[in-house]
């Protein structure tokens, strides 16, 4: 087999790279994806907060993925699903060796390759947390897959280690599905997540965030029975005497992501110790001829919007290389890495009058005072959203809800959903009970209304992803 361009990975990076290369005139291209559908990890990130830059609106992960999948489908860009790449070699041509059920082992020659394999989570072993080795220690992403893709619950009483956005989001997700999240522990003196996620994922549900704390021992012979939490000093070493036993049956780890570069290394690409990704030049080409890299395989991104943007460039550069041939490689350029979020909520915040806005990732601190005429004086917001949020929050707080609904006869078990608008905070429980009681029939398309007037509101629950009918082989 021969093609002009192979993109390894059909997540946000792979799809954006493919589309950009297509626009540049590369019509003979192929996406290789190891999962059964395109979209990558976005498919299990059913929460809101994606697409502000790319689409100028807030989307859930599956919605963001569906937008790209639709574009890929529209351009008829071919992809091979359930296909694992086992080897990549650069040069002219590049050779990709892959395997799947239908074709067995096969080789494809391509003029260029874009690496877009994404990243994986740091495991318990990689963090070297001592203790026993029971069931119930999950990386946040594994738990997320169980809850949002398999529709199953991986535990009842949960401790989350790591307060990056994934940890915070999973603390809320587990809570919404009925688990008791006892705390989120964070070894740093600040959270790595967004302020608004601390508010809407932890504060909303009364989940404590323990900064400068880490898990120092895992207990339980068969299933997790608890963890020891210790305070750490400014060198991040546990302080003896501060140990606290927290009973739980589940420990979720959200402690960082590692670019998945086994293929890049197999191709002989030089690696950058700092990013854990391959070394690239200004055109995102690795040190191996014809092999480009983008997205989380290059370095871990905070925002999917940035992944898409970088991947578009990689797609364009790869197209350029295919059309115009190799230039001088030039010099290595380390991708610009956004400084890590270091977030603390002001400790002396007066909960009665001061709010963190959850309208966007900025997280403005808004002060609300009552004027003499009983109107509200709102200060500290930097946009109109903030004013509306503060007004609501002081009078009748509202939230959007994302969850899943069971599907019968689909290729998967559940479809992601969201409330089409915000509902009163006090109705979240009822909303989730109604969502849990429903089973819909496949096929489901993103945007389908699945429940009307949820929890006695005028808001409906709509699908945010597609669920085709199961194909029996």
């Amino acid at each position, binding site marked *: 087999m021969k093609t002009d361009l192979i993109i390894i990975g059909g997540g946000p990076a792979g799809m954006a790279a493919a589309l950009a290369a297509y626009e540049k005139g590369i019509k003979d291209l192929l996406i290789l994806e190891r999962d059964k559908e395109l979209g990558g990890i976005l498919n299990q990130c059913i929460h809101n907060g994606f697409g502000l830059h790319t689409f100028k609106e807030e989307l859930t992960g599956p919605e963001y993925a569906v937008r790209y999948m639709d574009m890929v489908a529209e351009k008829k860009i071919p992809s091979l699903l359930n296909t694992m790449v086992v080897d990549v070699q650069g040069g002219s041509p590049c050779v990709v060796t892959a395997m799947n059920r239908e074709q067995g082992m096969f080789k494809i020659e391509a003029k260029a390759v874009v690496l877009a394999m994404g990243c994986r989570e740091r*495991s318990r072993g990689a963090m070297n947390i001592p203790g026993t080795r029971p069931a119930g220690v999950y990386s946040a992403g594994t738990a997320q897959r*169980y809850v949002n893709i*398999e529709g*199953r619950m991986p535990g009842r009483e949960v401790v989350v280690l790591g307060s990056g956005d994934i940890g915070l989001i999973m603390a809320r997700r587990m809570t919404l599905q009925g688990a008791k999240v006892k705390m989120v522990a964070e070894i740093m003196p600040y959270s790595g997540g967004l302020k608004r996620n601390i508010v809407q994922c932890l504060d909303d549900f009364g989940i404590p965030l323990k900064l400068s704390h880490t898990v120092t021992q895992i207990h339980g012979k068969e299933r997790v029975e608890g963890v020891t939490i210790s305070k750490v000093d400014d060198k991040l070493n546990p302080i003896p005497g501060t140990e606290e036993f927290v009973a739980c049956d589940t420990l979720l780890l959200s402690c960082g992501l590692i670019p998945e570069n086994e293929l890049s290394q197999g191709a002989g690409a030089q690696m950058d110790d700092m990013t854990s990704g391959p070394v690239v030049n200004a055109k995102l080409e690795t040190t191996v001829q014809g092999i480009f890299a983008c997205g989380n395989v290059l370095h871990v991104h905070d925002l999917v919007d940035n992944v898409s943007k970088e991947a578009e460039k990689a797609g364009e550069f790869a197209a350029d290389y295919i059309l115009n041939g190799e230039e001088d490689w030039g010099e290595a350029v380390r991708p610009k890495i956004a400084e890590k979020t270091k977030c603390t909520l002001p400790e002396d915040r007066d909960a009665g009058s001061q709010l963190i806005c959850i309208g966007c990732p900025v997280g403005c601190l808004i002060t609300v005072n009552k004027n003499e005429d009983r109107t509200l004086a709102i200060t500290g917001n930097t946009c109109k959203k903030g004013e509306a949020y503060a007004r609501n929050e002081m009078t009748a707080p509202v939230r959007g809800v994302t969850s899943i609904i069971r599907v019968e006869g689909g290729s998967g078990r559940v479809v992601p959903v969201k409330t089409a608008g915000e509902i009163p905070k006090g109705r979240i429980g009822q909303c989730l009970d109604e969502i849990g009681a429903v089973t819909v029939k496949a096929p489901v398309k993103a945007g389908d209304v699945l429940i009307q007037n949820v929890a006695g509101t005028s808001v409906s629950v709509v699908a945010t992803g597609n669920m085709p009918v199961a194909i029996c082989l």
Partner: protein
Amino acid sequence: MYDVIVIGAGVSGCAVARELSRFKLKTLVLEKESDVCEGTSKANSGIVHAGYDAEPGTLKAKLNVLGNRKMAALSKELDFSYKQNGSIVLCFDEKDRDRLEELKARGEANGVEGLRIIERAELLEKEPNIGDDAVAALYAPTGGIVCPFGITIALAENAFVNGVEFKFGETVTGIQKQEGGYLIQTKQQTFETKVVVNAAGVYADQIHNMVSASKMEITPRKGEYLLYDKNVGNMASHTLFQLPTALGKGVLVSPTVHGNLLTGPTATDIPDKNEKETSREGLGQVTQKAALSLKGIPGRQVITSFAGLRAHITKFERNGAVSGAESKEMSDDFVIEEVPDAAGFIDVAGMESPGLSCAPATGEYVADIIKKILNPEENRDFVSTRKGIINMSLATEKERHEKIKENPAYGKVICRCEMVTEGEILEAIHRPLGATTTDGIKRRTRAGMGRCQSGFCNPRVVEILARELGVDESEIKKSGGDAWYILPFEEER
């Protein structure tokens, strides 16, 4: 009525069972856990020792050298991973050279072949990353590495297809002598047998004490290990031991048969026979000591840590004398014998290091004892070979292609890190003594044993197990018991 009941499905018990299946004997293996290889056999160094450690004349010395010699042929016959990579005992101080010579002499007395003292220059040739302080070493070309799960599962499967029965989840609670044999009581039921083999690992003292007046005490000796990514598996090619010094026994650094790097173990005597916790201190100690042997082991390449228990006999009252580690006058040896005051009851106790290396010889040694008691007929239908599960990641492209064409399940990768396919997982479930837990799948196929430690494949393996075993996913366990992964539907919101 059984002819023989073996208590314990670790490597020793399974080796005995397999040897017994060469004869027309009705044999049963009782195991308290849900699978074979759930105790000491699953968490150890995976080393096939050359045989220079033990005192000449001991069972440890004799069975080690014999086991070592048999390992290569056995690994071919039963298709498990084994490699004779050679062992090196490092000496870090000129003053300790005598001890290196002593070790060599002891090895030679035990019949170990090819032992040689090598100097730093040769050491560097063999191991370029060797620690700066290593001045000389004992080189033992017959030392090797083996997959501890691979050998145990292979022995068990082969025993099973040759007619040995296995029962899991059976904890022995009592044994009574009766006319012509023993009555074995488990939590669930009672079994009658002519001969008992006590291969109960760290619990062998409890089983022994059920029938004998000479009391035995086993104190588990915990060893903590660190396992490193395959990226650094080639940092060492030999197994590197440290010459014991006044400061302690040292730790080993070794490649594994699967291409990882392994460091450890610590040695802590603990009272609890079921305590396998790793500790910050223990793992720190391993890291520190391993750095002496090999330079630049990158801490961030650790993929997991674990602890295992060695069955160390601390006390054994025999013939009026007390032996075991507590007494200096008697050697610190395995106890493999027909118990003098319990005819037909055979101890295979104190099987600490080099128990794994000895297994091929232990099986024969115990079978010989039983042959004298029961005088069995040969089993003419005995099949001596066993084919393991194909390892797709190691197969050639052509082999892989053909396998996928034969069965497409071998084209679907489930564990990305170790590149384990659905076909391999299905084999693991449906072969003799098939896996019923995710740990069972892991030890048979390596799914979940890689750098992401099952983060990616766990939900998929659970799904396959549930589908193939015809149960709900909430019933799939990590290792039996209460090791559940997900809640039953009824408990969900």
